[in-house]
C-alpha cells in the first residue's frame, strides 16, 4: 500500500507539472504573438518614417525572431517538439498578419485550426494514458499478482495447519486457540488481497476514465468544428448571394442608363429635325441653349456608363468588404456610444431646464394676474372714491 501511495503521488506530481507546463507554454505562445504584433508595429512605424518597404522589414523581423529561442535551455530540450509547433504557429500568424488584415472567414479558419490542434493534444493524451496504463500493468500488476500468489500459498499453508490443529483438538497443546489465531491471520491476509485488487481496479478505472474524458472532449471539439464549418459555408453562400445581387443591380442600372441614352438620342434626332425646318429664332435657341445642354447630358451619361463598366473590380472589392465588415471597423463606424450616466445627466438637465422654464412662465403669469388685479382694484378704489365724493357733494 505504501508503495502504491508513493507511485500515485509521483504520478500526480508529474501530471500536475506537465499540465502546468503546457498551460505556461500556451501563455508564452500568446505573449510571443502579442510581442510579435507590437514589434511589427514598431517596425512599421520606423519603416514609414524612413519611407522603406514594410513587407521587406517584416520579412527581416521574422527571420530574426525564428532564431530567438534559447536552444541550450532544459525546457527546449524536453519540449522542443511543442516549442517548434508554437514557433511555427507564431510564424504563420506573423506572416498572416503581415500579409493582410484577417476577415471573418479567415478568423474562423484560424479558430478551426486551433481546435484541430487541441484535438491533436487530446489524441496525444489518449496515447499517453494508454502507455501509462500499459506501463502500470507491466510494473505493478505483475508484482501484485506475484504478491497475491505468494500470499495465497501462505494462506493455503496456514489453512492446512488450521485443519491439522482442529482435527487434533488437543486442549493441552492449545490447538483450537492456535487454529483460531491462524484463521484471523488468514482473514487479514485475504482482506489485504481484496484491498490490493480493489486499488488496482481503481487505478485502471482512473486510466480508462481519463481516456474517456479525452474522447468526450474530442467529440465536443468535432461538434464545434462542424458548427464553425457550417457557419463558414453560410458566410460563403451569403457572400455569393450578395455578390449576385450587386451584379444584378449593376446590370439593371446599366440597362436603365443605356435605355435613357437611347431615348435621349431619339429626342435629340427629333429636335434636330424639327429645328432644321424651323425659324431662325428657334434655330438660335437650339444652337445656344438646347445643343450645349444636350452635350452636357450626353457627356454625363457616357461618364456614367464608363464608370459602371470600368469599375467592376473596385466595385466588387468594395461590396465584398461591405458584406463582411471587420469588427473593429464596425465599432469605428458606429462611433462611441453615450454611457447610461451621460444619458441620465442629459435627461436631468432637460428636466431642470423644463422646470426653470415653467417656473418663469408661472411667475410671469402670476405677475400678470397680480398686475391686472391691482389695476382693477385701483380702478374700483378710484370709482368708489369718486362715488363717495359725489355723494358728499350732493
Amino acid at each position, binding site marked *: 500500500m505504501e508503495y502504491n501511495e508513493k507511485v500515485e503521488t509521483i504520478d500526480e*506530481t*508529474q501530471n500536475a*507539472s506537465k499540465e*502546468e*507546463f503546457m498551460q*505556461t*507554454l500556451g*501563455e*508564452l505562445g500568446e*505573449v*510571443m504573438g*502579442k*510581442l510579435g*504584433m*507590437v*514589434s*511589427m*508595429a*514598431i517596425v*512599421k*512605424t*520606423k*519603416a*514609414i518614417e524612413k519611407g522603406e*518597404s*514594410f513587407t521587406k522589414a517584416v520579412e527581416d523581423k521574422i527571420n530574426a525572431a525564428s532564431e530567438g529561442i*534559447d536552444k541550450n*535551455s*532544459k*525546457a527546449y*530540450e*524536453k*519540449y522542443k517538439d511543442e516549442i517548434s509547433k508554437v514557433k511555427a504557429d507564431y510564424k504563420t500568424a506573423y506572416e498572416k*498578419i*503581415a500579409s*493582410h*488584415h484577417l476577415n471573418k472567414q479567415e478568423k474562423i479558419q484560424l479558430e478551426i485550426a486551433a481546435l484541430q490542434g487541441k484535438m491533436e493534444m487530446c489524441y496525444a493524451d489518449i496515447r499517453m494514458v494508454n502507455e501509462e496504463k500499459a506501463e502500470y500493468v507491466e510494473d505493478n500488476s505483475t508484482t501484485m499478482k506475484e504478491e497475491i500468489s505468494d500470499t495465497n500459498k501462505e494462506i493455503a499453508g496456514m489453512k492446512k495447519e488450521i485443519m491439522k490443529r482442529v482435527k487434533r483438538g488437543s486442549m493441552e497443546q492449545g490447538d483450537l486457540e492456535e487454529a483460531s489465531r491462524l484463521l484471523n491471520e488468514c482473514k487479514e491476509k485475504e482482506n489485504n488481497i481484496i484491498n490490493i485488487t480493489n486499488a488496482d481496479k481503481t487505478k485502471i478505472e482512473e486510466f480508462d476514465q481519463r481516456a474517456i474524458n479525452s474522447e468526450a472532449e474530442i467529440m465536443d471539439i468535432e461538434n464545434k468544428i462542424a458548427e464553425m464549418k457550417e457557419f463558414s459555408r453560410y458566410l460563403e453562400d451569403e457572400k455569393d448571394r450578395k455578390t449576385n445581387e450587386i451584379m444584378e443591380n449593376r446590370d439593371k442600372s446599366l440597362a436603365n442608363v443605356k435605355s435613357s441614352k437611347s431615348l435621349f438620342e431619339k429626342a435629340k434626332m427629333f429636335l434636330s429635325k424639327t429645328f432644321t425646318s424651323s425659324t431662325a429664332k428657334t434655330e438660335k435657341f437650339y444652337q445656344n441653349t438646347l445643343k450645349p445642354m444636350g452635350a452636357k447630358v450626353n457627356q454625363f451619361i457616357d461618364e456614367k456608363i464608363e464608370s459602371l463598366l470600368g469599375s467592376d473590380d473596385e466595385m466588387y472589392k468594395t461590396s465584398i468588404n461591405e458584406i463582411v465588415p*471587420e469588427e*473593429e471597423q464596425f465599432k469605428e463606424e458606429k462611433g462611441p456610444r453615450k454611457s447610461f450616466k451621460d444619458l441620465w445627466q442629459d435627461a436631468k438637465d432637460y428636466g431642470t431646464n423644463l422646470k426653470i422654464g415653467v417656473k418663469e412662465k408661472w411667475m410671469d403669469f402670476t405677475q400678470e394676474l397680480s398686475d391686472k388685479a391691482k389695476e382693477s382694484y385701483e380702478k374700483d378704489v378710484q370709482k368708489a372714491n369718486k362715488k363717495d365724493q359725489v355723494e358728499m357733494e350732493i
Partner: protein
Amino acid sequence: MDKNLGILMYKGKMYNLDNMNEEELEILKGSLNKDYQNLTKKLNILATI
C-alpha cells in the same frame, strides 16, 4: 505601407497599434518582454521537476 495591425488586447486594455507612436509601442513591448522572461523562467523550473 497601409497594412493595418489592428487592436491588441493586453491585461484587460485595448491598444490600437496603428494609432500608437514608437515610444508608446516600446513601453508596451517592455511590459510584454517582462512577461516573456517570467514565463520562460517558469517553464525552465517546471521542466526540471
